[in-house]
């Protein structure tokens, strides 16, 4: 899959390959040490952050933790049980 900056595509591909192997063969198997792909990640990062700047996308905006915080939206009380498909209008905060 392409990067937001086409000049980063090769670096992204190398990192993705390393990450996917690490994720399925190490992380899911219980080995949580995560430095295996760090050099490739750093190289790719410096490229992608430059590309984002050029496209006016703020890195700080992306790294906002929502999951597990008060900002995480909640299921409205009127919604049906989760096993069914449901659509409803309700207040969230």
């Amino acid at each position, binding site marked *: *899959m*392409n*990067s*937001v900056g086409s000049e*980063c595509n090769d670096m*992204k591909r190398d*990192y*993705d390959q390393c*990450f*996917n192997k690490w*994720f*399925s063969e190490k*992380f*899911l198997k*219980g080995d*949580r*040490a*995560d430095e295996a792909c760090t050099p490739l*990640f750093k190289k*790719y990062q410096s490229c*992608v952050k430059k590309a*984002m700047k050029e*496209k*006016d*996308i703020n*890195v700080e*905006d*992306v*790294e*906002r*933790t*929502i*999951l*597990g915080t008060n900002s*995480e*939206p909640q*299921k*409205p009380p009127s*919604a049906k049980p*989760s*096993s*069914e*498909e*449901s*659509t*409803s*209008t*309700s*207040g*969230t*905060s």
Partner: protein
Amino acid sequence: MQTQTLGVNTTAYKMARYHSKTTVLQNDWDQVASAVWQRYPNPHSKHVLSEDVISRKVEDNKLHSFRLLTKTNHLPKWGERFLPSGTPRFASVVEESVVDPVAKTFTTFTWNLNFTRIMNVREKVVYSVSPENNGWTQVHREAWVSSSMYGFIRAIQHFGVDRYKKNSEKANLGLQLVLGRLFNKGQEVSSEQKPVEKKILLKEKAKVAKEAAIQVAQQKAQQKQGTLM
């Protein structure tokens, strides 16, 4: 007057339209978790233009990631008036995720970074082991669609939920295709397929053909109308 306007906007933001749906994938959780990272590109993700990892760390044995996706953002003709000229041609979407390999849950929270005043779509997806069969994976999708365009909120929410439903169906189909490519190699030519899988494949093929036809029709219509974003 200013206070009043602010009040309306806050209410509008709070009044989100909610949609949820649960589906089941016949692959185990480990396979699904690996496939989620590799789900783009696929034939159902033409609207996804790029995908990048912005930060990633292992904390408390969980993998936390922030990714940036850019997607095409076609709006209906009546929505064009809300966009000032010179706005970017794509929507930036943030995907926060937490993978817990012990509890076997993969949670993503996705939201759009720009165009939020017009339409704000927030989606939470939880991939977990199916309670029916521990070799299967349950995908629970929830979405909150809201808008601050006073006077158009209902129309925009309606359009947003409708588009969300179509896109989440595409997301499920795309993920199934990627799972097949990664783990069920040769499935499409195998004669030992389970009937249920065959049925899904046939449905899948029919859907691809139908979508191709729709795409051609849409392209023609867009050429006539001029495309927005």
